[in-house]
């Protein structure tokens, strides 16, 4: 794991006016997303999380669909590639089984704001352009291995450019409608309108992450959605 130092996080969607700047405590986060190999070890030890054993309530029918078998990765899942097609419940259980937890959305975004050289690369045009480039590319059938590229300022790999990642409180922040805010409550809910008020208008990739996360449900599994743990 890598240590992320304490500091201040400026969420792109402040959920309330009092939360425009959020003090962050130091925490640790996995150096790279959880891999197929890691996840195979988990389901080997915890049969209730094997494909075919997990109730639909906790993972939809495409859970680990690209693995060859319940305990076999096969050609579509490189052992060192990030595990995907895992639900939020499964990701949470994996982290807890390893004495960790899923990062909060603020923690993940705070760690992901770092470029290779700075804890906050969000106003660095070259950094944000690179992130956007990933969003324009289709996901390959077989995902590449983790930690092949450059680490960010904290030493974390693949916060961008490989897979989307689950967070503990996905979908809870962006869609708040707080009656204590004056004016149009919709401004916090719709991308176009809230972009005007957003903390950092240049960080377009972050809009997409918030939008994507707020569309998820706990049992969903997606071919390019993985996770990493925090402590």
């Amino acid at each position, binding site marked *: 794991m890598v240590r992320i130092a304490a500091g201040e996080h400026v969420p792109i969607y402040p*959920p*309330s006016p*009092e*939360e425009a700047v959020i003090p962050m405590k130091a925490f640790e986060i996995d150096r790279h997303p959880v891999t197929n190999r890691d996840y195979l070890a988990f389901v080997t030890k915890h049969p209730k999380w094997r494909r075919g054993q997990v*109730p*639909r*309530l*906790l993972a939809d029918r495409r859970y680990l669909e690209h693995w060859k078998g319940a305990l076999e990765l096969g050609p579509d899942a490189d052992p060192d590639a990030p595990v995907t097609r895992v639900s*939020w*419940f499964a990701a*949470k259980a994996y982290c*807890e089984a390893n004495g960790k*937890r899923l990062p909060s959305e603020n923690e993940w975004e705070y760690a992901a704001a770092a470029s290779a050289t700075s804890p906050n690369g969000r106003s660095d045009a070259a950094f944000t352009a690179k992130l956007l480039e990933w*969003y324009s*590319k*289709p*996901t390959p059938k077989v995902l590449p291995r983790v930690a092949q590229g450059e680490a960010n300022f904290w030493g974390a790999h693949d916060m961008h450019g490989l897979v*989307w990642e689950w967070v*503990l*409180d996905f*979908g*809870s*922040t962006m*869609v*708040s*409608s*707080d*009656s*204590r805010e004056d004016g149009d*409550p919709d401004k916090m*809910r*719709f*991308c176009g309108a809230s972009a005007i008020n957003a903390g950092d208008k240049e960080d377009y990739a972050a809009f*997409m992450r918030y*939008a*994507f*996360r*707020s*569309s998820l*449900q*706990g049992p969903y599994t*997606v071919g*390019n959605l993985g996770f990493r743990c925090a402590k």
Partner: protein
Amino acid sequence: MRSWLLALALLVPTAALAAEGHPTLPASKVETGGDSLYVLDGKLTDQDGKEVTLANFRGKPVLISMFYATCPHACPMLVSDVRKIDSQLDPALRKEVQVVLVTFDPDRDTPEALAKVREAHKVDKDRWTFLRTDPGFVRELAAVLGIRYRFTPDGAIGHSSVITLLDRDGAIVSRVEGVRQPADDIVRKLNAMKK
């Protein structure tokens, strides 16, 4: 990758209802007719300090929702919404129906605090259970019930209000989102559960 386009399209929230002075969140979608909630093995504690799991309610129709005791507006309305459903039930069935309310806020809502809430609302003690559990299971249960919530800096909890009906085996058969919403479907499906 088109998933983010899909995500943008799905952003329009459903049934966001802002109660006065209380931040609310729209509920998320939940499939009905799926698995039993009784596969969840999280431990909960009731207002008398007794440890239970949700499976303790197996065999009876259950109305389940989430709340917190220091909630100023939406939660009392939630209790009154549940009462309203209850009042429309066949008397024989009503005796069976269990009302289960789980707090978002286990730190403040001790069993004693839950017992006080139950006392304050003068509900039928044989049928209403107030529960607390660990923060991790609060999150799981909220995800299963399609309830979004978040702690705000002033100590309030923004949340969506959802009342969910479970059949005798713990599967979700109906739900109503928002406060003061029509609950005809829940009432109809509950009355159909009469033995």
